[in-house]
């Protein structure tokens, strides 16, 4: 089926209440309208409990909306017959790398999704090798997952999703449990897939420094979408971020302090190098 809509994912008037929670008291999500374009890199930020993970699960058809609807490539996620298709289009990476690797070797884990698609063995093997090559995991193919580092585990999880040729990768705080190198490897891997293969990414993160690379940032708070826009607009709004208990990237925070001190800095600085550049040119002028 060809999706005629220009959007890869659409959420309309979406609301979700966890079972047992009263409809009126505190919905996990409510009134969400959101459309994700093909190949877009979206960062989702917000305090703990703001509904970020719930939104991802709705996109992957792990949860069904209580109100409104979610369309993935034009398919409603409540269509029982097409759930497999929705999940193939939207692969999901979870926070804890230990709890998402199913098989006893890396190779079989990457194959897991393809086995669920009931592809012939030879085709599975070819795809697994191709994906492992793309992500540089060949040397790990026969290792058991518990011997890998956190960053390696996350990249294996990405490979498992990638093997199914998704249109979008949903990531729930994928770097929260990783060291510096692991974080960098995972982010670079995903940015590469977004750039080179045109795969859309929805990236939930607690780290503002990871959100600066997005095409668009969405802020959720208490189940509602409170702001969205390009990173240089959203992340440079320090007062809004602070009011939600969030922080901007270091460059934004520092720029805000320096503006208070009378430095004439351009608005919308979000990258460290932009701030450095502006300060250096101020210095040269004086």
């Amino acid at each position, binding site marked *: 089926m060809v999706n005629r809509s220009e959007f890869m994912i659409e959420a309309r008037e979406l609301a979700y209440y966890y079972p047992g929670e009263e409809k009126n008291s505190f919905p996990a999500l409510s009134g969400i309208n959101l459309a994700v374009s093909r190949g877009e890199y979206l960062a989702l930020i917000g305090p703990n409990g703001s509904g970020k993970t719930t939104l991802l699960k709705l996109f992957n058809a792990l949860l069904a909306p209580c109100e409104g609807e979610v369309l993935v490539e034009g398919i409603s996620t409540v269509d029982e017959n097409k759930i497999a298709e929705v999940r193939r289009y939207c692969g999901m990476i979870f926070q804890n790398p230990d709890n998402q690797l199913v098989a006893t070797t890396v190779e079989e884990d990457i194959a897991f999704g393809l086995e669920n698609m009931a592809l012939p063995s030879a085709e599975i093997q070819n795809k697994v090798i191709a994906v492992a090559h793309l992500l540089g995991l060949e040397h790990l193919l026969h290792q058991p997952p518990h011997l890998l580092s956190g*960053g390696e585990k996350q990249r294996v999880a990405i490979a498992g999703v990638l093997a199914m040729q998704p249109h979008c990768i949903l990531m729930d705080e994928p770097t929260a449990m990783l060291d*510096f*190198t692991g974080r*960098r490897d995972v982010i670079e891997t995903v940015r590469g897939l977004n750039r080179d293969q045109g795969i859309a990414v929805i990236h939930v993160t607690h780290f503002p420094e990871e959100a600066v690379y997005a095409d668009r940032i969405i802020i959720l708070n208490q189940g509602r979408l409170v702001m969205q826009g390009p990173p240089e607009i959203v992340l440079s709004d320090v007062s809004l971020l602070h009011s939600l208990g969030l922080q901007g990237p*270091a460059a934004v925070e520092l720029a805000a302090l*320096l503006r208070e001190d009378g430095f004439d800095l351009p608005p919308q600085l979000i990258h*460290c190098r932009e701030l*450095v550049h502006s*300060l250096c040119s101020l210095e040269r002028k004086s």
Partner: protein
Amino acid sequence: MFIGTEKLTHTYMPGTPFANEALKEVTFDLSQGEFALIIGPSGSGKSTLIQHLNGLLKPSSGKVYFEGNTVGSNKAELFNLRKRVGLVFQMPEEHFFSETVYDEIAFAPRNLGFEESKVQVRVTEALEEVGLETRTLLNRHPFQLSSGQKRLVALASVLSLKPEVLILDEPTAGLDSSGRRNLYSLLTKLNRSKRLTVLICTHHLDEAAALADTVIVLQHGRLILKGAAKEIFSRREQLYQLGLGLPAVTEIMHGLSEGGMKVRTDIFDLEGARQEINKLKGRHVK
């Protein structure tokens, strides 16, 4: 020579084909009231090292000392060490088992064999130290708390031992930015007001770096660097080679310095950076 190790070596599963030397002749010491960070890529031996300081692991060779005395390997000495060196594991709220917050925090003092009246005093004090409202919380089920509160209760459940040294493994894992700031300001307060010696293992330097007096760098089980935070973080190239990053603010200062501005680069927090950059402005204004 308050707490430290001398030529500490630890081998997991010695004498088997799986033998793995996790620590190699590590020697370091901290003085009372010091605030130290241990950094290093995953698998560099950080967890193994801190577990020795708490008597959970016994050295394969070398020794651990506390208050100038070598810690023996008999039960009484190890128990005494654990009483005075508190260890907060990664994601400590996953170790909760009690029905109430009170019982959770009372676990440690009860293990010390205190009478219930004294246990109660310890629990109340510990909760106050972490800044939680005692009356409303004590009878709640620990699982009902928010993630930030859970982390604080976990911290209180170690502080109820009244330790002189507090060791934390990745204390902010899974917390959002307000949770992270809250925890670090609490640790600073405990360090300053109670002269508590604090030792933190972390991959996230942005919040932690500014607080540390001392930084210890491990790699492949060896102690590579130890020194004042200002000195260690000035070795930018070396840290990158070791697979470690720099705090974002420090990164900006390095950028400014490379861009020709005469600023110090041993600055880790926003306020410090603001003052340093303002000094330049002051000079220009004159």
